[in-house]
């Protein structure tokens, strides 16, 4: 379970580890060089050369558009959003452009987006000299209207330029859990570290990195630009082991399910959920956080926050299928495989002989193939891979995991899941391989529940 200072602890560990190993010993470096020298140059074929030409033309187009934009110093935040999968954020944020300089490093806060659940800060760091490593704000002190926020979750991501002089980054702080605790606890139960997070506040970001620099920012944050699209619905769903789900919040950039485990029940296996909308689309989970909050009378309640990707514009309801992680297996090679039957069903079995999943149909139309399957393990059956046994070509590879997970569809009429790939499977000798999750998770299909969001 997430502890109060896990985020801080993780930040410290990351920093210390990187400080511990800053270079590669000479002899090991030489071994890497030896290996590089061993690799042989391959020959191009005609098809690949034409590919290079296309890339060159594309590159010219990109350069033509990209460089003047950069040279003109027009904010390039839009492209960061796109690259780091934040394109939905663009229209909901406030453009800020607050700059501070320290030790030759100019930090510019470009934009802040807040939907009541998460504060997202987009920033750039510019340096006259190439930066030794990607800058980070790990350990930054965070205050809301001057009050220190003790347990924000979140993370950092970003991109450094090739010349190492510009870094564009995103800081995320989840505050949904803090808000939930504030709202769910009565005045007499509140502790000193609990603070109210309203719809509009000043975020004080205090970055003090020894040997790097010191920056402080007062960032105005408001939910105004997004508030009319935020929808909250209360519910009261009792689940196994004392779990109670009491609220769902949907925003254009997040979906959050809230719940509570009452006093005395906090040692249970952690319940998580697969989420499907009424059109059968998979809403991918982002993270789950819990916080055990002891009230002043000594009763501890565990507050639960499950974050998912945003719903689609036409999503009307969400179905949650509970599951728990039942076992920590040391065996990471738990794959199962079978020859793929193109005309009929293909069943894959766990090593205890139980049916794990059945491919019910393979359907290729217009060079796209739909693979239908049934399994009590639902979306977790994906990723799987399908390989042409004669040519070795991977029709679906594990690397396509993210894409498959996002595009997986559930058909409630036949209780089937559908994965689509961009290649044809018409005839030939194919095999299918998947990871047997049956020893690692337990899915409670009978406990699934649906909440209307429209």
């Amino acid at each position, binding site marked *: 379970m997430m502890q109060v200072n896990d985020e801080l*602890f*993780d930040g*410290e*560990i*990351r920093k*210390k*580890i*990187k400080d*511990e*190993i800053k*270079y590669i*010993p000479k002899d*090991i470096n030489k*071994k*890497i060089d*030896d*290996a*590089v020298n*061993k*690799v042989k*140059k*391959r020959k191009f074929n005609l098809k*690949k050369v034409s*590919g*290079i030409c296309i890339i060159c033309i594309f590159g010219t187009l*990109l350069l033509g*558009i*990209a*460089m003047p*934009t*950069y040279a003109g110093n*027009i904010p*390039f935040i*839009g*492209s960061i959003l*796109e*690259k780091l999968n934040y394109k939905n954020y663009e229209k909901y944020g406030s453009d800020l452009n607050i700059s501070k300089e320290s030790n030759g490093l100019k930090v510019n806060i470009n934009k802040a987006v807040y939907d009541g659940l998460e504060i997202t800060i987009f920033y750039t760091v510019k340096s006259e000299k190439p930066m030794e490593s990607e800058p980070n704000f790990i350990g930054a002190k965070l205050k809301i209207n001057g009050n220190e926020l003790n347990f924000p979750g979140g*993370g950092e991501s970003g*991109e450094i*330029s*090739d010349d190492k002089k510009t870094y*564009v980054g995103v800081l995320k702080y989840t505050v949904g859990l803090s808000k939930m605790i504030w709202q769910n606890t009565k005045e007499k139960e509140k502790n000193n570290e609990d603070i109210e997070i309203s719809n509009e506040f000043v975020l004080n970001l205090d970055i003090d990195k020894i040997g790097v620099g010191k920056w402080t920012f007062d960032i105005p944050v408001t939910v105004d630009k997004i508030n009319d699209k935020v929808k909250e619905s209360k519910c009261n769903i009792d689940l196994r082991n004392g779990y109670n789900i009491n609220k769902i919040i949907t925003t254009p950039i997040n979906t959050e399910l809230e719940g509570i485990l009452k006093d005395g029940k906090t040692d249970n296996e952690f319940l998580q959920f697969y989420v499907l909308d009424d059109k059968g689309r998979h809403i991918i*989970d982002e993270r789950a956080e819990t916080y055990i909050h002891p009230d002043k009378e000594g009763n501890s309640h565990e507050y639960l926050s499950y974050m998912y990707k945003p719903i689609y514009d036409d999503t009307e309801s969400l179905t949650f299928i509970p*599951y728990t*992680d039942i076992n*920590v*297996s*040391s065996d*990471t090679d*738990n*794959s199962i495989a079978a020859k793929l039957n193109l005309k009929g069903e293909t069943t894959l079995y766990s090593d205890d002989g139980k049916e794990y999943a059945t491919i019910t149909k393979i359907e290729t139309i217009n060079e796209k193939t739909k693979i239908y399957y049934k399994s009590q393990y639902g979306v977790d059956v994906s990723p799987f891979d399908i390989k042409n046994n004669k040519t070795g070509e*991977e029709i679906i*590879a*594990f*690397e396509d*995991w993210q894409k498959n997970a996002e595009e997986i569809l559930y058909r409630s009429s036949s209780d089937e899941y559908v994965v689509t790939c961009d290649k044809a499977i018409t005839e030939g000798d194919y095999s299918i391989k998947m*990871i047997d*999750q049956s020893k*690692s*998770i337990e899915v409670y299909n009978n406990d699934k529940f649906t909440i209307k969001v429209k």
Partner: protein
Amino acid sequence: MELISFFNYRKKSTVSKAKKGDKEAFLGLIDENRLNLYRVARGILKDKEDIEDALQNTVIHSFEKISSLKNDEYFRTWIIRILINECNEILRKNKRVMHLDDNTDTEIYSDSYENMDLTRAINSLSEELRLTTVLFYFEDMSLKDIAKILKIPEGTVRSRLTRARIKLREVMSEVEV
């Protein structure tokens, strides 16, 4: 369109060249990821020769397999996965050796670094915790990406990390983070 697309293009282009057999481009990618690869190998393996073997095999196998990389943007994740497989293979072989000769006592690699309390602490974790911990702390990977690389559910990653944190907290309380 704008700056980030340009960065992205450059990166993709280097991977694309490497996929077509361009050794210089491949070398560039290895150079870019060299320290990260070393950190990961150093976190998982204890023996110097094992670290060297894992890194050499990773370089060779990644070059051999690079044409199979589907999405150029995921080069780093892809090569880390190859490295993890190489490390796993070495750990498996070492286990077999241990069974044959129980007196084999692998000496923990002591390199020129003086202050490596944390790396040593991570080295002392069980194999399953070590892999998760290395990817999370050394590579800053998300739980989702770790789940993908290790082919285990995200919940398992989460619980492994929780257990690893407990152990690391114990160690770090002795040496002070």
